[in-house]
């Protein structure tokens, strides 16, 4: 069975990591073997630590769920260790100034290394031979950096020759042919929706198309079918605030739907003081109800 790569991308702060981990929980509970891959600095990964306690809560889900953080510098080092023998020479090379300068001055090399590792994880899942991953969820960096990362493969293929260019070609081919599902995450606000629609355009230029949108942090008012009435006057400024908020939210949600790219799945804002397992389970519940799992089964 081929591995599917699901990409959670979008503007900074819209909840990509939260939804990626939430989705992985929902899928793992349904018996799927899921790997969440991220390249964020460790700090952001604190969220995945909230998964602590999952084992006691649902052993089966815990056994099918993995989260990895890819550090590009370590990927590059492992490529060197694989390609250079004997090992002591590899270590010498890694600690040399030539190597360290080179790694820093070749533009987009780190992004390239990330894709390399991602491709490796997707095509040769060796973490557990008897139970390979069925789904890879990529918790991607914020839009600009995400697009740069996607372009890195093409650039390496175009501007270089030799092993790096071959690898660039292999990664581009993988991105073109993989069972790839791109899920931009956004919030129902003008800027976020603007950026999401621009992202759709940029993806189109790379011959990619999102499978649908995840509209995060919506209010319960969004799913109400009835028309909005003004809130009681006695509510004062608060009524105006809620009313404007609800209108804006409907308007922005409407823009996403009108783009006719795919389904727009709603996830309500979950109030929390600290992210914990309970918080992630509430997100997972919502994602289950949006039909995300069915979409990923297609």
């Amino acid at each position, binding site marked *: 069975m081929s591995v599917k790569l699901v990409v959670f991308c979008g*503007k*900074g*702060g*819209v909840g990509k990591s939260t939804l990626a981990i939430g989705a992985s929980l929902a899928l793992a509970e349904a018996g799927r073997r899921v790997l969440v891959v991220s390249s*964020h*600095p460790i*700090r952001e990964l*604190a969220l995945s630590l909230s998964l602590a306690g999952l084992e006691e809560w649902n052993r089966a889900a815990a056994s099918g769920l993995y989260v990895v953080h890819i550090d590009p510098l370590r990927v590059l080092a492992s*490529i*060197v260790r694989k*390609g250079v023998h004997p090992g002591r*020479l590899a270590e*010498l*090379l890694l600690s040399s*100034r*030539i*190597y360290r*300068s*080179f790694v*820093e*001055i070749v*533009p987009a090399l780190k*992004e390239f290394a990330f894709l390399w590792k991602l491709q490796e994880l997707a095509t040769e899942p060796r973490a557990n031979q008897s139970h390979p991953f069925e789904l890879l969820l990529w918790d991607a960096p*914020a*839009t*600009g950096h995400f697009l*740069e*990362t996607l*372009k890195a493969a093409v650039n390496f293929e175009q*501007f*270089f*020759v*030799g*092993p*790096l*260019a071959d690898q660039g070609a292999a990664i581009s081919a993988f991105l073109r042919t993989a069972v790839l599902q791109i899920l931009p995450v956004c*919030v129902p*606000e003008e800027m976020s929706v*603007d*950026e999401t629609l621009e992202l759709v355009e940029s993806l189109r230029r790379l011959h990619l198309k999102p499978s649908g949108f995840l509209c995060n942090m919506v*209010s*319960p*008012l969004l799913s*109400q079918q009835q028309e909005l009435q003004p*809130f*009681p006057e*006695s*509510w*004062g400024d*608060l009524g105006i*605030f*809620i*009313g*404007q*908020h*609800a209108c*804006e939210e409907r308007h922005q949600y409407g823009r996403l739907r009108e783009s006719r790219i795919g389904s727009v799945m709603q996830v309500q804002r979950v*109030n*929390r*003081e600290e992210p914990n397992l309970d918080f992630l389970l509430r997100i997972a519940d919502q994602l289950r109800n949006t039909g995300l799992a069915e979409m990923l089964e297609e």
Partner: protein
Amino acid sequence: MVIRICVGTGGVGKTTVATAVALNLARQGRRTLVLTIDPAKRLRTLLGLEAGPGEHKVRLGGAPPDLWAAQLDVEYTLAQAVRQYGDPGQIDSVLEHPIFHVLISSLAGMEELMAIEYMDQAIRKGFEAIVVDTAPSRHAFEFLDKPEFFADLVSFPLVKLVGRSYRIWAASPLGRLGRRSLELYSRLEDLIGAHVVSQVLDFYSLFRTIAEGYAERARTTVERLRHAGECGFIVVTIPSKAEQDSSFFRKELTKRRFPIEKVVVNRCWPSLPEPLEVHSDLEREALTWCRDVASTQQRLLSELENRLEGQGIAAVLLPELASPPVGLDGVDRLAGELRNDDDEP
């Protein structure tokens, strides 16, 4: 010179806060520039500016303060630096070199290097106040760390040597012989392809004078950001991230000896007056939801304010607006809240 740097994670409203801070500085009579590194076009939408590199004058009614806005354009800034500081005979070779194209077409990591260069260019152009809206970058401090790293790199004896002599050396028979005998170097070539290595070295030999000049300017500018009298960092965050962000940025800024001016918590929800009359399910639902958001925020914020007070850091809370501010009127409302008591009107 006044420099304010807004840092924070994505989606917290850094651009809006930076613009409000810049507006306050411009109203004090300073020739002010607000520079956004964020590739999102928020600044342009916010102020209704035209596209294009360079500074755009922000138009205001009444007595206009001297406020300018610019969005970092990496290609423009880099080409500008090449033209201004490169050897006249080599400018075209640099701009046409394949590696230069990788640099500007992938742009990965270049924003961070060029932000500091742009700040230096702006100071030279005579701006008296600069407010920088940083990118929600992969690593929050890359835009400060990378230039310093780059400066260190170009001063490595090996890089200097290669930069100066590579083209002559590579062309000579001795060079070919010498390269082969350098075991590590040839291993690197085997691994990634000889052509890549020579392209990169070739480019850096051309780029050397520009890189060295850049490194020197970057060092001076970054050092400038450590002067508390002149520069202050503003941590921008939102209630749900305030605790995590403020301790992270405080730790990282202190480690790098950068001064913190204040923490701005943006998008705080209004508190609820009680009790409120409710006529329908929809109203009840709206109220429950709103109370839930607001009360969670208030608990988080009161803890935060206590902690920051203990650390001697000022905190400013800004209200959530139902839709993002558009134009200077929207920014103006926030600017009022951000004005320090000792600021002159």
